[in-house]
């Protein structure tokens, strides 16, 4: 009963061959963005590391992050949930409800004290002692603190958990905050996105499952392997940006030609995420590829960086990428310096207000003629 299987033991029990096991390890290595030299270490970790127990709680959220989680292709959600982690508590998928489920939560917290991974999805409403989100007859704020105290590490799953998300947008009626604002002294990794790309979340969990620790993070606490670049730097439309070829209005001929969306509001120049390289559904598309400007859904307090169709200020174009990059640099710098919550958004917002007065200048081209009629 107490025995926890390693991935290799599980494979053995399931009569899956050593060869398949090694293949899985190779896949996992590349999934986690690790160099192939590390394959032996991944194999070793998978052989020796027991399946980590996972507790998954929900605060103020829309369950979009769970839905995204089950859309993962590699690893598939079924393999992850049934084979690679021991998902001991997750009310969205659990068979049980009510008292038996809450009892099981308590059991898991005490039995695996200091060993389990806590995934928290959603923001934590703190107004009036947390009465705006009651689960099992008590505030989720209380359950979070309780579960966090025994956790080995915590994942802030989605922009709500990482930054407060939509309910924390002005005027933040329930005083919702990020998990890390009410829990201290624990290793915490932020996996933002509204929702996160499925494989970004499952990749982070796999890293923990295999290595027993959180992946390396950037200055804002996000896994570097998924949040190391701006969308703008990995965007396949970047050559059009650099050449000053812009969509001026939705569904104009430049939209059909797939040119850069900067002028209709694209937030790619300030968005750190994997949409440009991994894309959604393993390379199938991402909002920009489908013609929609990025809204930077993984950025801190992006909701208050609206209106979303106003172009980002102060990113002169074309062929002056240095300035565009500066915005990214300032963003990272400011946040690293510890300016929390809405500071960054305020900065951008301020610039947006300025730019409204300045009026976007007209640099840019349009494709010649209506190519549809050619």
């Amino acid at each position, binding site marked *: 009963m107490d025995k926890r299987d390693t991935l290799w033991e599980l494979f053995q029990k399931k009569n899956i061959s050593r060869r398949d096991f090694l293949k899985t390890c190779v896949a996992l290595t590349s999934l986690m963005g690790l160099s192939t030299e590390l394959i032996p270490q991944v194999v070793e970790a998978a052989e020796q590391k027991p399946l980590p127990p996972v507790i998954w709680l929900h605060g103020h959220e829309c369950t979009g992050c769970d839905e995204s989680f089950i859309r993962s292709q590699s690893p598939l959600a079924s393999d992850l*949930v049934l084979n690679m982690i021991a998902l001991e508590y997750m009310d969205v998928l659990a068979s049980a409800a009510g008292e038996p489920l809450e009892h099981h939560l308590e059991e898991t917290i005490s039995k695996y004290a200091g060993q389990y991974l806590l995934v928290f999805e959603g923001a934590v409403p703190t107004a009036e002692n947390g009465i705006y989100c009651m689960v099992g007859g008590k505030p989720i704020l209380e359950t979070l603190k309780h579960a966090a105290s025994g956790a080995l590490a915590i994942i802030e799953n989605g922009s709500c958990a990482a930054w407060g998300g939509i309910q924390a947008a002005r005027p933040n009626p329930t005083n919702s905050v990020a998990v890390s604002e009410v829990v201290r002294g624990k290793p915490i990794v932020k996996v933002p996105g509204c929702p996160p790309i499925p494989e970004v979340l499952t990749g982070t969990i796999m890293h923990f499952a295999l290595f027993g620790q959180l992946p390396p993070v950037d200055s804002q606490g996000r896994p570097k392997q998924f949040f190391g670049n701006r969308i703008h730097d990995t965007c396949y439309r970047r050559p059009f940006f650099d050449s000053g070829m812009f969509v001026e209005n939705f569904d104009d001929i430049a939209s059909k030609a797939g040119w850069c969306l900067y002028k209709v509001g694209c937030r790619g120049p300030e968005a750190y995420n994997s949409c440009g390289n991994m894309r959604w559904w393993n390379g199938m598309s991402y909002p920009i590829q489908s013609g929609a400007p990025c809204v930077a859904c993984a950025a801190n307090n992006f909701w208050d960086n609206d209106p979303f169709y106003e172009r980002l200020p102060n990113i002169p174009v074309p062929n002056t990428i240095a300035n565009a990059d500066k915005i990214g640099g300032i963003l990272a710098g400011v946040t690293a310096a510890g300016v929390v919550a809405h500071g960054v958004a305020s900065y951008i917002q301020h610039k947006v207000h300025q730019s409204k007065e300045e009026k976007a200048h007209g640099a840019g081209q349009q494709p010649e003629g209506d190519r549809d009629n050619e």
Partner: protein
Amino acid sequence: MKRIVVDPINRIEGHLRVEIKVDETTGKVEDALSSGTAWRGIELVLKGRDPRDAWLFAQRICGVCTTVHALASLRAVEDALGIDIPKNANYIRNIIAASQMVHDHTVHFYHLHALDWVSPVAALKADPAAAAALQNTVLDKYTLNLSGPVSFDTSAYAKDFPKATTAYFKDIQNRIKKVVDSGQLGIFAAHYWDHPDYNVLPPEAHLMAVAHYLNMLDRQREIVIPHIIFGGKNPHPHYIVGGMPCSISMNDMNAPVNTERLAVVDNSINLSIDLANGFYVPDVLVIGDLFVKAGYVDGGGLAGQRVLAFGDYPEDHYSGIANGDYFKNLLVRANGVVENFGQGVAKATFYPLEGKDLSDPNVLAEGVEHSWYSYPETGKDLHPWSGVTSPQYTGPKEGDKTHWKYLDEAGKYSWIKTPKWNGKMAEVGPLAKYIVVYTKVKQGIIGEPTWAEKFIVDQIETVSKLLNLPPEKWMPTTVGRTAARGLDAQLSAYISKYFFDKLVNNIKAGDTNVANTRTWDPATWPQEAKGVGLHEAPRGGLSHWVTIKNGKIDNYQAVVPSTWNACPRDSKAGYGAYEASMIDTKVKLAEKPLEILRVVHSFDPCLACATHLYDREGKELSVVRTDPYL
């Protein structure tokens, strides 16, 4: 009499609690309350924003029925501003909505509801060879041989078909056995697997269903591929007010939509048809049939008394929603209310729901008698366009404000308001939609049914024959609610195909427009405007209500399906749909109320949707302003 609390209700979106009073000797539920236990205030967040951004915010009301709030929001803003979207945008939105319907229903049935009917533990007793034989019988007997109109038949054969071999079921069974033996049950832990209701089905049916649970967990992601192509991601794909951002061009290799991209969508739609025909419909019908044969025809609650729907899928252009034009142009004209369907379709009464009704406060209004809000005039319900919500949290009956023992059924006990039609309660959802369309067609109110309306009638009649029961006996029950969702998934898969074909034909005719941007600039808008957006979402009739002033959102209200169904009681109107259905259900073991989970899950609860209302004055609670510029 025993008072039982189930909190949290699992396998749902959001946070729900129910409390029931059960007579332990008879198993009768004497009283039941349903409470939404969280409040996020999203409509308050929407206030003062650019109406062109509203859909982005509103979409985050729910990520399970992702996209439905975006669609209702876009329609509300477009209604207010008088924006007519291009044909292609309408077709694409309909494909997104219909594929969402198939996806949402599939995930609900297999991953959020199935474990109320089937058990992995019971599957261990199955004979794999008998399970393979059962799978064949099920496919023979419970497949509905119906099909929608298909003008471009691109699928050579059904690619996804249930496996029916002994070896397959043996393998699945071995895998389940290892999980059970390990003691690490994970998501299967701590449940009442010893409940007698898990004996209704033979072990082979449990094994078959558990195999499909796993199968569908991996397949469901492919159903929403249209969202990835047209909207860039899922959950929460992208739109724009006035149409879609995904421009179409057959001349550009970088175009968001070209032939290659359309082929990806087509492939996904074909798959969704196969999954509905080969898995979902036969599975839900065989389980339903065996439960009905075992006497489980309870849980109807309000369904036999009063149901409400709005209908959906505009065929082409419409000039507005509040003006009623929208209703003239629908593929599924389910707009209306049906009373007393439980007495048979001939005795049922139909009431239309049309444009003028939308703005009539006597027809649609919300009350707060048992909700944690106060109204300026106690007892006077308000229309959503002039809704008021001052939060007024009163805590429980027993326990304290942050530690509840029992909620107060005599006072306020939920963050959900109580919406009413003509001062009465109504149930919404796929079952409601099916009852309304069936009644309208059978009573001749719809003279010439569209193909989809005829499809609904054919489905209902085929199932009635299969179960050997008239519709009024099997439909307004827990089984009926769950079956209607499966039928709706099948219909929706063909609706995706239908609008895909229309899209292709329209492009073929030379029209590649996807957005109407003539009114994109706020300078072109009236100073004041209001609009309503309707959508028949997976959980039922959804309405968003917006007022716009000087280019900004002045008021925003959403009356969502789960508000209709999960709402608290009302002294004049009676019980809400969840509460009525629980009272209509017999509980065998008070300590293990599996029947309650089953009936509540049959509604596909979605609580974040239901509990986010705020007021027009926007009473601010603990407001923290950290943005100096706003």
